[in-house]
């Protein structure tokens, strides 16, 4: 589904992604964890080219991901993305947020787009918030709306860039529940997160990054119970003691 080969990226002199190789199979849920500054968000953003890669290849279904223009827009339409800061369109209602891209990119008719949007909002549990403005929703509701907005494009892959990091603790659960349900439905997902419980519960594979490199990649139980590298052991010791 997704294949990353020899990906490198620099921010100025800083080498933030070092020779990344990653494969995500159809229906697989890959959770990327690691200390802040390890490059995991950058990797996630490279996958739909919100960040430009320095060198290396990104293949989606065997086809190199286009670098710009309409072809790139076409790729992004098929790759859903959920951001840490939600990024709902502030001047549109929740319903309009979900309807915009299907109408403008897919060319869906308004009634059809609205029907799908309402279904999706019901699926993420915020059907009754459809006509509100994003700022009137709680963080958890906004993030669920953002997930519905991404799903409205019927994406083949969903990227989650620290989707719960900006949320109050009591709202993390409601977003993770939606994501867990999505994973159970067979959605291919790449999730950058600090939620170790979610990684253990929902991931097919955990990828541990540090200092711009993929240090370890393993099935969750194996990774959490018996990390192979010192760096992973250090990291887990720090995050799991709390």
């Amino acid at each position, binding site marked *: 589904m997704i294949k990353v080969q020899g990906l490198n990226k620099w921010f100025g002199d800083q080498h933030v992604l070092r020779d990344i190789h990653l494969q995500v199979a159809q229906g697989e849920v890959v959770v990327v964890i690691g200390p802040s500054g390890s490059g995991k968000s950058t990797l996630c953003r490279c996958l*739909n080219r919100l960040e430009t890669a320095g060198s290396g290849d990104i293949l989606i279904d065997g086809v190199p991901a286009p670098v710009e223009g309409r072809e790139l827009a076409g790729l*992004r*339409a*098929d*790759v859903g*993305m959920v951001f840490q800061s939600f990024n709902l*369109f502030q001047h549109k209602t929740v319903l309009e947020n979900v309807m915009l891209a299907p109408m403008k990119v897919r060319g869906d008719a308004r009634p059809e787009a609205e029907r799908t949007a309402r279904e999706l909002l019901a699926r993420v549990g915020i059907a009754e918030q459809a006509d509100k403005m994003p700022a009137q929703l709680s963080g958890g509701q906004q993030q669920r709306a953002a997930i519905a907005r991404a799903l409205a494009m019927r994406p083949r892959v969903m990227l989650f860039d620290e989707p719960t990091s900006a949320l109050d603790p009591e709202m993390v659960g409601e977003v993770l529940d939606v994501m867990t349900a999505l994973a159970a439905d067979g959605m291919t997902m790449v999730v950058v997160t600090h939620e170790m419980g979610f990684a253990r519960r929902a991931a097919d594979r955990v990828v541990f990054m540090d200092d711009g490199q993929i240090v370890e990649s393993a099935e969750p139980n194996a990774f959490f119970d018996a990390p192979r590298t010192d760096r992973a052991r250090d990291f887990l010791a720090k995050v799991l003691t709390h």
Partner: protein
Amino acid sequence: MSAFLDHLPQFWQGLVVTLQLTAASFAGAAVVGLVITALRVSPVRVLRGIGTAYVETFQNLPLLVLLVLAVFGLPEIGVKAGLLETAIVVIALYEAAYLAEALRSGVNAVAAGQGEAARALGLTFSQSLRHVVLPQALRTVIQPIGNIFIALTMNTSLAAAVGVVELTATANRVNLLEAQPIPIFVGAGLAYALIAACAGFVTGRLERRLVMIR
């Protein structure tokens, strides 16, 4: 005051021309200003360069110079257009530079995540500008745009210098007959003030209606 009131029909004529100049050149400036804004925030370097060159050119030349150049220069190169039309086009192009700068500051005020989210959904650059970024940018710059509208209204009086008989030119003509500058120009000034007050009222209303909760 009678010097002003005796010539009311003339002043009315002048006011109508001023309103035509204002409305038409503001409409033109809005269209050109939007295009220049799009150029200035474009990811393509050449387009950004064109946008910057436009703004620098028109902001660094006095409107009066541009008007005189157009009115006397265009016929030299074979372009024949009416005085009013020429003045409208020149004022529109000039004010577009200022509008574009106001709009660009609005675009910069929109969080980067908004455009990113739009592009991540598969909207092209121009779609994300049109449906997501510009509508939010406009809301934050209603007041500066109102100010530009008022400045544009006042700037239309420069068209008098190249022979367009608008409000100021009318006042000048009437003054040549009556030799009573104070009532005549106070009267003309009040008419300008009235237009500006209307603009202020409309922008205030718009700002309250389009306020966006963040």
